[in-house]
């Protein structure tokens, strides 16, 4: 039995954990639910020895223990599979698994023993993994298996899974839960971090709910409903977005047999006033699609028509001029510059046009005025134009990016993972903006790895697999199972 008592942790003045106490019984399947930023991952990273708590204690079978590093946690049988994989792509499966407790022969590393041992662990889990294979050559689903092997190879008794299904197809997720359930029946304690309430309710034997760094309640899956859980997570009734029927207008984006690095013969069409969702397992051409459409990636053949204009070559400036706006998946990589101020970030992309410029000069007054308008209208907090962009919270950064892109009055809006890492209120705010944009006659191309998000927002849906558009569904015919099969490339057309 593990007991977490009164744990508190701050990051640079922001409280991530606020006096959290939690008991974990041997052999149970405990689910930790809460919004993004509720403190679930922080709590588990403290248990895993990655973060040091500011105060509070962790006890194993009643013995208070200081976990200074993950090594200490591993020694006490705690393993963790992180949401963002911690695998070295250039190393083999076996090397990744034994990293940190390598079998040795004399001074050297005993790689052949490592391979045999890892193969044995894989076999005991029923995983088909080649210990010699480079991790970079594996699919996302297989990489996750390597993560699980890594933990179990250390003989852990408690396994933490942090959002394990975030990047999996429904089929892969089902398989993951089947394996985990078997392990649990063999005596493994499992802690599942998730915000997907359906999977939590079917899998867990106990559910702990966190909100704003505190544990607010514990319930059993039999005694609750998804609605009640959601309410506990956000502290009030969950907002539900409604989906008005689409009124499609003229075509704003069309691809005819477009090829590029990562895309094969992609043909699709998007009309004004509709949201076209792109579903697929990570790395199957979705990012390449958004990059081609926004001019960030050249296409090698095919016909691309943007806002009624056929383009032979597209660069980001041209795309913007044609009325394309872009909310990329990783805002700090492409959309927002952490070291620029909020107002400078607002001008980014249109910094050579009024009201941000007067001839070759920066129009400081115009920039300030427009920034104040935007941050106030979009509830960006704090509404300080001179603040560093990096000092805003993730949700406010995203609100700023969306506000900026929509301020350009786009004909085509390309969004990739628009709500990743946001709390529920911010998620709903962003989704509401997308729906509003669609009603105003903008065409929205929505890419998300979260199938639920695509299902919730899209009027039509195209499934991508291995760089191809393999299937199209109308909203009326959305079928999660069938979509999942297409994502894996196992469906028969």
């Amino acid at each position, binding site marked *: 039995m593990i007991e977490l008592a009164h744990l508190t942790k701050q990051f640079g*003045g*922001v*409280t991530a954990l606020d006096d959290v106490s939690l008991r974990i019984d041997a052999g149970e399947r405990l689910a930790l639910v809460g919004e993004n930023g509720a403190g679930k991952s922080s709590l588990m990273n403290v248990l895993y020895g990655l973060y040091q708590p500011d105060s509070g204690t962790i006890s194993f079978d009643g013995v208070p223990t200081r976990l200074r590093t993950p090594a200490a946690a591993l020694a006490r049988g705690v393993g963790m599979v992180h949401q963002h994989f911690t695998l070295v792509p250039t190393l083999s499966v076996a090397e990744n698994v034994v990293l940190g407790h390598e079998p040795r022969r004399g001074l050297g590393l005993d790689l052949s023993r490592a391979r045999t041992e890892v193969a044995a662990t894989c076999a005991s889990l029923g995983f088909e993994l080649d210990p010699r294979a480079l991790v970079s050559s594996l699919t996302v689903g297989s990489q996750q298996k390597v993560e699980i092997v890594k933990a179990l190879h250390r003989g852990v008794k408690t396994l933490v899974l942090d959002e394990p299904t975030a990047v999996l197809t429904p089929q892969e997720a089902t398989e993951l839960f089947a394996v985990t359930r078997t392990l649990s029946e063999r005596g493994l304690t499992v802690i599942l971090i998730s915000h997907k309430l359906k999977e939590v309710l079917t899998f867990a034997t106990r559910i702990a709910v966190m909100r704003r760094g505190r544990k607010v309640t514990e319930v059993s899956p039999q005694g609750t409903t998804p609605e009640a859980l959601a309410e506990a997570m956000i502290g009030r009734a969950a907002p539900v977005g409604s989906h008005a029927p689409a009124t499609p207008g003229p075509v704003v984006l069309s691809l005819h047999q477009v090829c590029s690095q990562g895309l094969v013969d992609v043909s699709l069409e998007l009309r004004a006033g509709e949201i076209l969702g792109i579903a697929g397992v990570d790395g199957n051409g979705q990012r390449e699609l958004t990059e081609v459409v*926004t001019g*960030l990636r050249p296409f090698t053949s095919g016909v691309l028509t943007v806002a009624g204009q056929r383009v032979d070559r597209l*660069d*980001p*400036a041209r795309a*913007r001029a044609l009325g394309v706006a*872009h909310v*990329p998946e990783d805002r700090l*990589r*492409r*959309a*927002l*510059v*952490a*070291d*620029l101020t909020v107002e*400078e970030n607002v*001008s*980014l*992309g249109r*910094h*050579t046009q009024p009201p*941000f*410029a007067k001839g*070759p*000069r*920066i129009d400081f007054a115009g920039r300030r005025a427009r920034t104040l308008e935007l941050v106030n209208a979009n509830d960006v*907090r*704090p509404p300080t134009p*001179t*603040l560093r962009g990096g*000092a805003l*919270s993730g949700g406010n950064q995203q609100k700023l990016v969306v506000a900026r892109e929509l301020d350009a009055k786009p004909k085509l809006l390309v969004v990739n993972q628009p709500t990743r890492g946001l709390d529920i209120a911010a998620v709903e705010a962003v989704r509401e903006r997308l729906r509003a944009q669609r009603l105003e006659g903008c065409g929205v191309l929505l890419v998300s790895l979260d199938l639920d998000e695509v299902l919730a927002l899209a009027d039509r849906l195209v499934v991508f697999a291995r760089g191809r558009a393999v299937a199209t569904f109308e909203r009326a015919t959305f079928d999660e199972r069938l979509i999942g099969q297409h994502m894996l490339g196992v469906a028969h057309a």
Partner: protein
Amino acid sequence: MRERLRAMVPSVVPIVLSLVGCFLAVVVLRGWSVAFDAFGAMFAGAFGDWPKFVDQGNAGLVLRPLGEAGNKAAILTLTGLSVAVAFRVGLFNIGAQGQLTVGALAAAVVGAKVDLPAVVHLPLCLLAAAVAGAGWAALPAVLKTTRGVHEVISTIMMNWIAVSLVENWLVVGPLKASASGVNSISGTDQIAASAELPRLFEGGSRLNAGLVLAVLAALVVWAFFGRLTRGFGWRVVGLNPEAARAAGVEVGQVVVQAMLVAGALAGVAGAVLVLGTEQKYPTTLGAPYGFDGIAMALLGQGDALGVLVTSLVFGALRAGGTRLQLFGVHKSFPELIQGFALLLVAARLVWERLARRLLPDREPKHG
């Protein structure tokens, strides 16, 4: 204002700490009185002997040292700006040395071999130096954008190539000064009077127009980055090239243009050296001007006015450094001060934290 002050802490504190540390080092090595006298002499050599000037009323006591300081500061500013401009777009220009070398040679050749009235001749020399420096920087820039060759490696190579070709071949071979009479002359031919940078004061001070050029360059660079939309685009390239590309900025072009500007600035620094003080390309330039440029750019935190101010300070200390030899301290002592200051500046996070503590936000922190 508070922001400005806070931004200065990471530069000012290391320089002061380094000065104090090096002073204490001299105390340990040579004792209190020597240390006081030596530093006194250095500062008098750097900023002028004001007490004596007040006593005797001899303007030379102040003007001469300040002139030397200004001449040194001009070179430091221009090389510092060269590195800083590249730095601002995310490039590390270690090649200022090579660019300065070819710029100096170009100025020396045009200055000596062309016969024109001063109004045209001097600008032509400067232009030749700028073009030569830019040309020398062009290759690393192109290799970076087309082949992904890291500019740190390529500019180091270009430095060696420049120094080898210029000092081991051209200056001792084809461009060697023609011997006049019995005196054998080292280096290239003397430049014509029409190519010389004019002195700013008659008599006492040797201060030349190079400093005016340097200050102008600093102001232009400062205005470009702070006031123009194009400069804003360049800054974004330096902070986040991916975001710049997504915002429609042609990153490759900016990289090449910035390197050309950086090379031109270093080239002009070479010209100021030749046209202002050396009057020819000597056998060897000798000093690590490129390294000094890196130091100035980093100490000034890549800001044009910051570079100007630190260059004025260290130009003065350099000028004063020659007087240290009387006290048994090597004249390169200011370089040591500069080096330690740079090492301290590298610990940026520490000073930023200190700045926040010394000058806290007035509004409560937002979580």
